């Protein structure tokens, strides 16, 4: 070489400082990226929990009710049907007025009544229908407070802003303070959130309807996608010869796994609803659409699991004179099953989080009743979240976050199952 070793060393040394800096910079970028990612996770969960945890508690008022026949049955001739539509709201007003005897006038009474959810009247109606002997008697009932009272107790309505800009008037504030003071208004575990369907009134809205809808939809999805996906994977891995046909199938599967989910919704709308005339908003159709959506995922995972079974096992089975179907069903499939199940759970977790395609087939309708079958109108958790997120009432924000926490809990359970399954049963050959 035409340059001396000493000269080379000098040049290398000269470059070192710059390069150490570049190294440090590069490494710092990397670390920053990781920390940024982590902080997104923290921010996301932090904001959800901060907004959502309070929804698990709810404001209840204890009131004294008098099932007054003079109000409910003024003529004394009411049948059970008449009683069902009687003026229970008047009972609520009366019992509140007994608590605050100095309230006068329609406007003030209306304000007072607004402290209690309109579900209070329904509660009374139900109590009376259960036991008609309650007519004329008195009892102490715990009923839902209205969403505004609830939000105030949770500190989400600012007492210090001027009355005109506040959802709760000064007068109402005074009543609320009095009720809190004597212990008849307080926060308690929000059971209704887990047992009721949707409602326009935030304090009455619950996730149970959506949870049941989700269960029906996912059951339908699982029942269809698991057998079909496993069958398809077995065919492609064990039976198909490689030719243009199987290549086409493979390209199709890989591509379908990356097609935007909303396109599957369009397919569902055009084919299942418009051509086949299936019912809108039904878990049946939701399940069909999600089946098509999750099939590629499960097929790909199942193929990987089948591929991981060593060829020696197949040779051993065939060598014993087993047919190909016997080889697969007796030997290969059982060995691949943990991997297939893991893939299936992951596919189901994906289906659980899907929203867009279900909007296309009408699962976005406002549905109060808890669905009772595959063809009942239903909604699912993610769509419920979408609907609530769109609602203007303040109190829906915490419900939305809480519903998200419920959804995430489902996802965590599913993914944890998948991980455990993988760690427990996955074999390294």
């Amino acid at each position, binding site marked *: 070489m035409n340059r001396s070793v000493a000269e080379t060393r000098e040049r290398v040394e000269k470059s070192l400082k710059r390069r150490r800096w570049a*190294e440090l910079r590069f490494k710092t970028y990397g670390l920053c990226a990781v920390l940024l990612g982590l902080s997104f996770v923290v921010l996301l969960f932090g904001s959800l929990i901060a907004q959502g945890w309070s929804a698990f508690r709810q404001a209840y008022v204890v009131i004294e009710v008098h099932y007054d026949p003079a109000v409910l049955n003024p003529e004394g001739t009411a049948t059970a049907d008449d009683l069902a539509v009687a003026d229970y709201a008047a009972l609520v007003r009366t019992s509140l007025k007994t608590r605050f005897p100095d309230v006068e006038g329609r406007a003030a009474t209306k304000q007072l009544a607004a402290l209690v959810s309109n579900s209070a009247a329904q509660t009374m109606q139900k109590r009376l229908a259960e036991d008609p002997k309650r007519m004329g008697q008195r009892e102490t009932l715990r009923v839902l407070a209205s969403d505004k009272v609830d939000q105030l107790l949770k500190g989400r309505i600012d007492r210090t802003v001027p009355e005109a800009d506040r959802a709760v008037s000064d007068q109402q504030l005074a009543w609320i303070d009095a009720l809190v003071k004597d212990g008849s208004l307080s926060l308690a575990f929000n059971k209704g959130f887990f047992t009721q369907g949707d409602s326009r009134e935030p304090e009455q809205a619950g996730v149970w309807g959506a949870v049941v809808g989700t269960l029906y939809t996912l059951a339908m999805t699982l029942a269809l996608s698991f057998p079909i996906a496993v069958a398809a994977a077995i065919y492609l891995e064990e039976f198909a010869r490689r030719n243009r046909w199987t290549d086409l199938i493979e390209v*199709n599967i890989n591509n379908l796994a990356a097609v935007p989910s909303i396109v599957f919704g369009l397919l569902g709308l055009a084919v299942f609803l418009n051509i086949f005339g299936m019912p809108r908003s039904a878990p049946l159709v939701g399940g069909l659409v999600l089946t098509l959506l999750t099939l590629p995922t499960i097929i790909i995972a199942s193929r990987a699991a089948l591929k991981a079974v060593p060829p020696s096992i197949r040779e051993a089975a065939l060598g014993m004179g087993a047919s190909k179907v016997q080889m697969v069903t007796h030997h290969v499939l059982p060995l691949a099953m943990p991997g297939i199940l893991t893939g299936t759970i992951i596919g189901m977790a994906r289906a659980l989080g899907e929203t867009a395609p279900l909007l296309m087939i009408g699962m976005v309708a406002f549905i109060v009743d808890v669905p009772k079958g595959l063809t009942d109108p239903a909604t699912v958790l993610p769509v419920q979240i979408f609907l609530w*997120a769109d609602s203007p009432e303040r109190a829906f924000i915490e419900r939305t976050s809480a519903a998200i926490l419920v959804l995430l809990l489902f996802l965590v359970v599913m993914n944890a199952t998948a991980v455990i399954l993988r760690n427990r049963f996955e074999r390294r050959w």
Partner: protein
Amino acid sequence: MSTSALLLVLAALATFAYWSGKQRSLKLVGGGRGIRRLHSLPSYYGLLTALWCGLPALLIMGLWLMLQDTVITALVKSHLPAALSHQNAGQMGLLFNDIKNIVLGNIPADGARAEVRAAALDYQRLRGIASLSLTGLVLAAAVAGLALVRARIHPELRARNAVEKIVEFLLLGSSMLAIFVTLGIVLSVLYESLRFFNAVSVQEFLLGLTWSPQTALRADQVGSSGAFGAVPLFLGTVMISGIAMVVAVPVGLFSAIYLAEYANRGFRAWVKPVLEILAGIPTVVYGFFAALTVGPLLRQFGEHIGLHVASESALAAGLVMGIMIIPFISSLADDMITAVPQSLRDGAYALGATRSETIRNVVLRAALPGIVGGVLLAISRAIGETMIVVMAAGLAANLTGNPLEAVTTVTVQIVTLLTGDQEFDSPKTLAAFALGLVLFLVTLVLNVVALQVVRKYREQYE
């Protein structure tokens, strides 16, 4: 008989067929030691009988149920009095909704017009006939299959081979479903799009600068369409996806690099799963996060520095979409980086390259095709992402390059056009399918190219 009851009966018949086929084969050879004279194990004769009993019947039932509603509706329509049958498609749809609701008892029949009530009765009568004939047909098919196979059972019948042929056929059918789904998507979306393009020219759709499908709703404008120039949607989609990629690519790539090349094992073992949580979160959650947390944050920040940020801005949606895509990029990049053989790294280190020089000049260089493929897949994802933009980007079809303003995207418009009250056949709803077609084609091209690139890359180092 109701569908589920019919299914139960069918299952019972198939079980009986299994037992009967098995018994018959045993009886033919005198049972016990005679089994050796049978070509296959007795259970295969049972299976064969059961399959022939159940499968054709199921097939008939499936086809029937698929077509039943269409046929009955057509029949009822043909029986309608003239006063009702001369309506446009939208009104017809509403009429049939009423009819079905009366039949289901959702609407009291006495409230409806006499003609409608008659149609409902007609509908109900036809449904009754259909149900009865379906039951008869399915049961006949099942019994016939059972009897035919049972009669043909003899010791030389290759029952196992026959059963396996059927099984193989079913497996093949399952794998072909992927093709049918693609075909279904293409045909259904294409069909509706073509109807749309009858009303609105392709040029206008692809090149027009104004998008206001709502005007088509106004009664005085029925027939005349609104403005269906989709360029604002395309631009909005590109802008939001662009912002997302600007966030996701550097963050995803650098975190993959850091975790693969710098982090020690303990750090990696903790951080990787935590970052992957981001990938498992449903998009509706991101949408909520964008609309409720990021949007207002950006707005406040904008006010602070004297910028007007719309409450539903492209920036908020893009940022959050970027966060969603980070784990996608980083796990793909991680795969690609770890696939680069150690020998290449050794070569660079042995020359005295620093770690970052090795990564930039050798590892990333080698992994580039794979990473590009991954980024293409990520772009396809961003374009097709729906919930985040529906919840955070807004509906205003602004033709703007300003990320602080509200824009709308292809997916948002599909959702808006197809949810809520819809009248089928209007250009407004058909436009959603045209948008869906564009979306499908663009993502298809991206996916195929990306998958090809990634596959080539993987094969290179296998």
